């Protein structure tokens, strides 16, 4: 990362007192990781609901961080800002309906539910996910798909979660070790049948 891209990434850097290169870099990192997002479509409340939902679909676990740290909700907010009107309004209606359901069941918006109550609600929404029928089921499936796309195309999803090993210089492809006449430690196939 050179100075120029840092300045660009930081955005607000022009308003700041002069920082060293290291300082600017650190600022950009803060922006990247935990700064409040500049929302394009959703209200802060809608964003909180979406972010909670995305994290519930792909949560942090022992192996890697989840959708919140991968900033999936910000990705959806950006794409919604550039989607057709009916797509945008369907999504907002879905977020509102999720909050309404959560309010009705447990007396609080979805973002404030404890884990057990959130799971109860999502279990219902995911029940028919192969063929979603109700608006809320359809909303859940759409959000799940968008969360999958946003998460597994993020740095966290590709490198920390999947530990994908491609897109690097590999002068000779190794493949299954049986191709070189050896037993393969990855799949257990024998060199010779």
């Amino acid at each position, binding site marked *: 990362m050179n100075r120029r891209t840092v300045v660009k990434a930081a955005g607000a850097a022009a308003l700041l007192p002069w920082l060293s290169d290291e300082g600017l870099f650190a600022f950009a990192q803060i922006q990247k990781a935990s700064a409040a997002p500049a929302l394009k479509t959703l209200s802060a409340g809608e964003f909180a609901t979406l972010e909670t939902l995305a994290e519930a679909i792909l949560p942090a676990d022992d192996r890697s961080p989840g959708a919140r740290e991968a900033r999936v909700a910000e990705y959806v907010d950006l794409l919604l800002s550039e989607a057709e009107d009916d797509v945008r309004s369907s999504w907002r209606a879905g977020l509102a309906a999720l909050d309404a359901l959560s309010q009705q069941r447990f007396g609080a918006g979805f973002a404030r539910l404890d884990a057990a109550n959130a799971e109860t609600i999502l279990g219902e929404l995911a029940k028919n996910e192969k063929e979603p029928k109700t608006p809320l089921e359809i909303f859940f499936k759409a959000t799940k798909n968008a969360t999958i796309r946003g998460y597994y195309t993020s740095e966290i999803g590709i490198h920390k979660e999947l530990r994908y090993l491609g897109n690097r210089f590999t002068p000779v492809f190794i493949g*299954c070790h049986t191709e070189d006449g050896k037993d393969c430690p990855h*799949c257990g196939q024998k060199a010779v049948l």
Partner: protein
Amino acid sequence: MADTTLELDLNAITEDSRKLAASIKPGKQKYDVIIVGSGAAGGMAAFQLAMAGIKVLMLEAGRMIDHRKEYRTMEWPYSSMRRTRLPPGERSIDVAEYNFDRPYGGNPVYQKNAKLNSYAGNTFTRNWVVNEKQHPTTGTPYAWVRARVMGGKTNFWGRGALRYGPLQFDAASRDGYDVDWPIRYADVKPYYDKVDVLLGCSGTMENLDTVPDGIFQRPHKLNCTEVHFKRSIAKMGRHYIPGRAGVTTEGVLNNKYRVKCMGRGHCGRGCDIGANFHSPTALVYPARDSGNLTIRPYSIVTEVLVDPAGGRATGVRVIDANTRETLDFKARVVVLGAGTLDTTRILLNSRPTTSPQGLGNSSGILGCHLSEHIMGIRGSGFIPNRIGTETTQDDARPISPYVPRFRNVTDKHPDFIRGYHFQGGGGAGEYPGVAHEIPGFGKGFKSNVRKYYPSLFSLGGFGEVLPRKENRVSLDPEIKDAWGVPVLRFDYQFGDNELKMAKDMGDTVEEMLRAAGAEDIKINRDPLPPGWSIHEIGTARMGNDPKTSVTDSTCRLHDAKNVYIADGAPFVSGGTQNTTWSILAMCWRTMDHVKERLRTKEL
């Protein structure tokens, strides 16, 4: 946040292209040969002729390409907050469609152009494919992918480098349908060999009639799921072989623009080190270095000009894409390599008084026999030996393996003639598409995605579409493109043979996945829309009889002795093989005829 993947600055290359175009005017210089197009056909034609000392003018409808900058081979999806998707208005088909995650996206209005979406809708290739609004088509739906830029579709081609064999050249002798090619595999084999050596082809010797062997460089090994699949279907007498890729894995001689494959993947975005065959680095730039090739970008060829007295071409008419000037360039020979359908369109639009139905169309069959491959029938499943294992590097290669055709080779299927092949493989790719199919949410869902991620295996079929006279293109009598040229009208649909074949493809892919013990097998039996294969051929078919063919066996028009076709338009039937390697070999053969006839002053 700024999206650097959308801010690719093309001003320098477009400005260079404008200046280059403006510097080349008719009458300033004499050319022996005009070549229309700069893709696989135009590139090979230019290379062959320029290297033989022949003065060539290449006319490309689009701009030049800055391949080092525009081939963003190793860019990660997270380089952009949009993850390679484009905002509305940035797409080549800018109908404000936005295929945001289904079910809210997926507007049926755009299904017709779904394939075009996939090229026009990502940040890597959208600058090369045409805008559908400027280049409409009429008639039946056809996903006609066109690239107007130096190198054409070779900038993002699929790298399948397969030969036609006796099963294609003598197809009619075997099953009695339609006609044989006027030439045989033995006529083209030496040219396939030369193409392999010149451009580099990765593969293994298999000794199969269905896909003849070549002169191969280092092949790409199979990964764990694929070895298991290969061993499983071997018991059924079927083959599963490393893909044959038009990629140099061991280097090519005397080409300073290319180095050997480094196994990075993402080849379809353009290979920035030139290991993948692309017409510019492999053919056009070396040809230009000879001093015999002049390239004029932004030159839309609208028709071949014909001397009414002699029935010979005198040159071509060009509209400059920027200035909209009409320019007539002259030469002794015209070689059309605009791509099967645009070449056909140029001929149909060339209407001298002597042939008002189109140049080369005295037979009336120009535009007929449009053929390609039926696709979309595919199967997937999880190969048990990799379920729950840690990720390995499974996709560091330019192509996945291949199940050669097994139908109607030695046996005879009761329901259909000809055949199909499958391409595909398994293992851990960059994006776990499987996640969309796994039910649930939360930690259990997340761990299931990584459990199945390295084990997903899938195969997709390519089936021969029988050449039929009624599958045709013609000029639309009313609609014109943005430059006033009549657009193509398609009358094209899959027939009974294709649909029966498609059903069998679904059955056999399921049968093979079951033989491999795959879990959670899913079969898609619905064909993709016509045109999806981008393997269009046949609309100016070759033959010995001028009454039933457009070109002779050297791809020269029966009706105009100095007009040649270098692309797939003269191909009689297309088997199941990907088309590019045959275009390259056939073009080389055709150019040998051109060279010889120029030498003997016949041209």
